[in-house]
Each structure stands twice: as structure tokens, then as C-alpha cells.
């Protein structure tokens, strides 16, 4: 639950304001541990499996004529070289890590000889824009809504939001997406049914393309936003309730401050900071949900790329996508973890 995570993150009054070197080193260490764990999982899983799935996928691709260009011997050669299966395990592992450091994930099986990293680099910006925009809006709207739901002087009708917000937070993002497609794209025909841009156009940076891309991304963004907003609102409500009981709130009221000032500067400002620190914690969860939203909408991001790779058993793409998403999210989390505590003078940089 968001509430308890955020509460755990808040570690009470702190001492020094500067980022401690030990915290910095520890935090960067966690980042590398995450990357290393993801890399090792990708290395270990196919080798633990009794039949090497990559070899099987290759055999299947060859027998089904699924390899589009180039001869299958080339594919097999690339595969053998990639895995270096004649080498001892630790040599394979080190070579594999070396490849990852250079973002070399090999070549796609179904789109041979396209390099996996190129496919990911085309898809990743779509995902990042979609995810960033919807998360920022969900955070902002959810936080304000949650604060208003808890604020004692809010009009009574604010309370009616509690039930729908509660329900929305219980719905997986992509199922909400399906409902939105049906209601707003299929029935009402207000939005395109899927994809990232109009069929027959190629991605460029001119205005008409961007408008079209925006039109296509509204529904996926809204489904992520609506489903995510509930969680933020509920967490914020819990935080606001605690904040309103604080002495400085009574003091502010005694001073005769205006209600909106009490709300914004005293209650909201103090309650929002623990909320912000939990942003880094839930990002992985949000990304998981967002990838599935892409699949439902056929949005041209890494989620859809992953889905197609699963359908064609394109293992290099599967492993490459999962690794790149972990790296991207790890960097974002690192950035947030280093930046956000600077906003909250109450948070220590030492791990409790």
C-alpha cells in the first residue's frame, strides 16, 4: 500500500542538509545492484532451462521460414558467437556483461539482421513520454484530490469522490484502457482505436504528425492517469489526516490565516513531501502497468515491442527490452531519490 510505504520513507527530523557521501555511494550502489541483478537474471534463466529456448526458437523460425532476410546459417552463426557456448560458463558470463555495458543485445530473430538496440531505441521514447506525462499528471491531480478529500473545510460533495477513486485504484490500468477504447473510441468515435500515429504516415517531427501522435496517445495516457490517480489520492488522504492533527495547524488557525493559505502552505506542503518520496518506490509498478496499456492500444512503445517479441519467441528482444527498461527506470529512481530529499528538509540522507 502506498500509505505505509510513504510513512516508512519518512524518517523524522534530520540533521545535516548536505547529501552525505555515504548515502550517495550507497544509493548509487543500489542502482548498480539493480542493473547487475537484471543482467544476471537474463543470463541465468535461459541457461537454467533444460532445453535452450533460444536455440529452439531459432530452429522453429528456420523451419517455419520465419527468418525474413538473410540465410538461416547466418542467424545460427550469430547466435553461436553470441552465446559462445563452447566457452566455460564464467567466460560466457563476463562476455555477456561486457556486451551489455556496450548495450549490445544482439540481433532480432524475427527481424534479422536488425539490431535489438535499434528496435528498442525507436520504441523507448514513445514509452518514456507516455509514462512521464501520465505519471506527472496522475501525481498532481491525485495529490490535490486526496488533499481535498481529507481537508476538513472541504465542501461535503468532495466526499463523493471517495468511492469512485477507491474503485479506480483497484482496476488494473490496461483493463481500464479496454473499457475506454470501447466507450470513447469504438462507440463514441472520439479517438483513434489504437496505434501511435495515423496509418500510412512515418514518424517525423512536423506539426501535423505531432498533433496526430498526441491524438493517439490521449486514451492510453488517460487510462494510466485515471488508474494511477486513485492510489495517489488515497495515500495523500492518509497523509493529510495526520498533518491536520499537527500543532502548527492549530497555531496557523489561531493566527487567523485564510483557509486557502492554511490548506496550501501549511497542510498540503507538509503532506506532499513524503508522498513525493514514494514516487520513486512505485515507479516499477507503474511501468509494469503502462507496458500492458501499450499492448492494449497497440501503442508503438517498448510494451508492444515486448508483446510482439513474445508472440514470435524473439528472445534477444525480450531480454533486451527488459534490461533497457530496468536501466531506464533505475536511472529515474536514482535521480528522484537524490533530488527529492533536497525538497524536504525533514528527511535524513542516512538509511534508517
Amino acid at each position, binding site marked *: *500500500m502506498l500509505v505505509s510505504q510513504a510513512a516508512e520513507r519518512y524518517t523524522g527530523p534530520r540533521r545535516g542538509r548536505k547529501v552525505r557521501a555515504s548515502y550517495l555511494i550507497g544509493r548509487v550502489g543500489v542502482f548498480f*545492484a539493480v542493473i547487475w541483478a537484471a543482467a544476471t*537474471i537474463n543470463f541465468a534463466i*535461459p541457461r537454467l*532451462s533444460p532445453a535452450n*529456448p533460444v536455440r529452439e526458437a531459432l530452429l522453429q523460425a528456420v523451419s517455419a521460414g520465419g527468418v525474413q532476410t538473410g540465410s538461416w546459417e547466418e542467424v545460427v552463426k550469430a547466435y553461436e558467437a553470441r552465446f559462445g557456448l563452447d566457452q566455460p560458463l564464467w567466460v560466457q558470463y563476463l562476455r555477456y556483461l561486457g556486451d551489455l555495458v556496450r548495450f549490445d543485445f544482439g540481433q532480432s530473430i524475427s527481424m534479422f539482421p536488425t539490431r535489438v538496440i535499434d528496435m528498442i531505441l525507436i520504441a523507448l521514447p514513445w514509452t518514456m513520454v507516455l509514462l512521464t506525462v501520465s505519471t506527472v499528471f496522475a501525481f498532481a491531480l491525485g495529490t490535490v484530490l486526496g488533499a481535498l478529500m481529507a481537508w476538513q473545510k472541504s465542501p461535503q460533495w468532495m466526499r463523493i469522490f471517495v468511492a469512485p477513486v477507491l474503485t479506480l485504484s483497484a*482496476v488494473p490500468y490496461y*483493463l481500464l484502457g479496454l473499457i475506454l477504447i470501447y466507450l470513447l473510441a469504438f462507440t463514441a468515435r472520439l479517438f483513434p482505436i489504437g496505434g501511435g500515429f495515423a496509418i500510412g504516415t512515418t514518424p517525423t517531427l512536423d506539426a501535423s504528425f505531432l498533433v496526430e501522435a498526441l491524438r493517439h496517445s490521449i486514451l492510453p495516457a488517460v487510462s494510466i492517469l485515471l488508474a494511477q490517480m486513485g492510489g495517489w489520492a488515497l495515500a495523500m488522504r492518509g497523509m493529510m*489526516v*495526520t498533518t491536520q492533527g499537527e500543532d502548527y495547524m492549530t497555531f496557523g488557525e489561531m493566527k487567523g490565516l485564510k483557509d486557502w493559505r492554511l490548506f496550501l502552505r501549511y497542510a498540503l506542503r507538509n503532506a506532499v513531501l513524503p508522498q513525493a518520496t514514494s514516487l520513486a518506490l512505485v515507479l516499477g509498478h507503474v511501468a509494469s502497468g503502462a507496458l500492458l496499456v501499450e499492448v492494449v492500444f497497440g501503442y508503438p512503445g517498448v510494451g508492444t515491442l515486448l508483446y510482439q517479441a513474445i508472440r514470435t519467441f524473439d528472445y534477444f528482444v525480450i531480454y533486451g527490452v527488459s534490461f533497457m527498461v530496468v536501466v531506464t527506470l533505475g536511472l529515474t529512481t536514482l535521480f528522484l531519490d537524490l533530488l527529492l530529499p533536497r525538497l524536504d528538509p525533514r528527511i535524513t540522507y542516512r538509511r534508517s
Partner: protein
Amino acid sequence: MSAAVESRLASAPTRRIALSRLAALRRGNRQLMVGLVVMLAIVLFGLLGPLVVDVKGARVGSAMPDQPPSVAYPLGTDSVGRQILPAIVAGTPLTLRIGLIAGTIGLGVGVAFGLIAGYFGGFWDTVLRGAADVFLTVPSLLVLVVIASTMRGAVDITTEALVVSALAWMSPTRTVRSQVLSMRERTYVHVSKLSGMSGVEIIVRELMPNLLPYLAASFVGAVATAILASIGLEALGLGPQNEPTLGMTIYWALYYTSVVRGLVWWWASPIAMIILIFFGLFLISAGLDEVANPRIRRAP
């Protein structure tokens, strides 16, 4: 001042707090009750449904394809001749079973890790809390995709539950650890320590009973996480291909583009059931949270 007056003075605020606590408990219990009733209804639906509905109708080719709801097919049929109502009746217990197996394993591992990390501290705390933090930041769906896609085809209900449970232990670990940390320094633990109880004995006899409400909330959370992950995997086509779990029904509905073909009954029925499950679990966990966690009791 007489002793009676003194005690009345002292007890007045205490009683007020006790009253407000009681009211909050009841409010927490109301959420808890509604959630339990919803989940009980779903379980009964899965248990009693097969007596009323013939679950053989969930098989491919058991009916005319693409039929809208009618008397013969109450929730319609899909594009390969599966009837939706039998698929939901048969699939709901399967999805719940995945959640229960994975949730139990996740909670078990989480409790073990959390107790060790919280009680013994030091090296084990660093390693276990570090591991939990690392795996919390990784988008769990992707790790599960890597595992499940490697197993291609060999996935059944139990294996899927095991795969999902691999990433259901982090939240319980964190919850238990932070609770144990706060309990470790309480007087009753010190007393037990002084009276010569061993570490394991203290964990089992002193800490565990106090952890129970948190464990209940963690368990519900772990089950919900596991179900969410399993449905996500299934929607990507990595679930048991021959079982009509709720997620697999959604996968086939997506695979045959049912949304843009206007076959509402096909995709809306499993979604409705999934939302109901999450709603029930959410209410239970919110209710338990309110009972276990005084910090949020004052919520309006």
C-alpha cells in the same frame, strides 16, 4: 483531591480516545466486512457455479462462435466457440488459486526474511532489505516475462503461481521488518530476553502474535499483487494456454480483437469479475490496515 476525582480526571480523555478508537475500528470493520462478503460471494460463485453451469462449455468448439448473450448462452460465446459464462465460472477459482498459492509463498518468504532482518539486524538486515529494495524497483512484470517466456508452453496453473510468487515477497518483507524493528525494543521483549529465551523463541512466542494483524494485511496485499501479476502475464500470452483463467480469457479477447469487433460480452465479463476481485481484496486490506495501523485511524 480524592483518588476518585483524580482517576476521573485522568480517565476522561482516555475514554474519549477509547471511544473514537472503537468507532474507527467499527468503520474499519465495515470495510473489512464488505470486502469479506464480496470475496466470499466470489468463492461461492466458483464453488457452486459448476453445479448450475456446465463448465465443459468453456472448451473450444462447444458452441456457435461470436454469439451475443442469449438464453442458451447467458454471456455469449467467443470466436472459437467457447461459452463465456462457463469460462468465467471455471476460470475464477483458477485465478484465485494462483493468487492464494503465490500469496502464501510470498508471505511465508517475506515473514522469514522480515523476521531475520528485523530481529537479528546487522549483516542479514543489509542483505535482505537490500534485496527487497532492489526487487521492488525492478518492474516485476518484466522479470516474470523473462522467466515465463523461457518456459514457453510448459506453463500450468501451479507453475504460473510459482513464477509469480518469485516476486511477491518484497512488500511482506518490508512490512514485517519495520514492525519487528519497532517491537524489538519493547519492554516485553527485553523481559523475555532477560528470562533466558532464545532469539527464535522470542520471535515465535512474543513477536509473531503481535504481528498477526500486519500479517493478515500483508497476505491480502500479496494475493492481490500475485493476481495482478498473473493476469498481466496471461494478457501477454504467457499463461496456461489450455486453462480458461480470467487473464487467458482477456488474452484471447485481445488476440481476436474483440473490442473493435463489438463483442462486448467477451471482454467485459472477465474484466467485471477481475475488478470485483480487486475491489474485494482492496476493501479487506484497507479494513485490516485501519485495524492494525492507528496512524490512519483518524481518516474521515
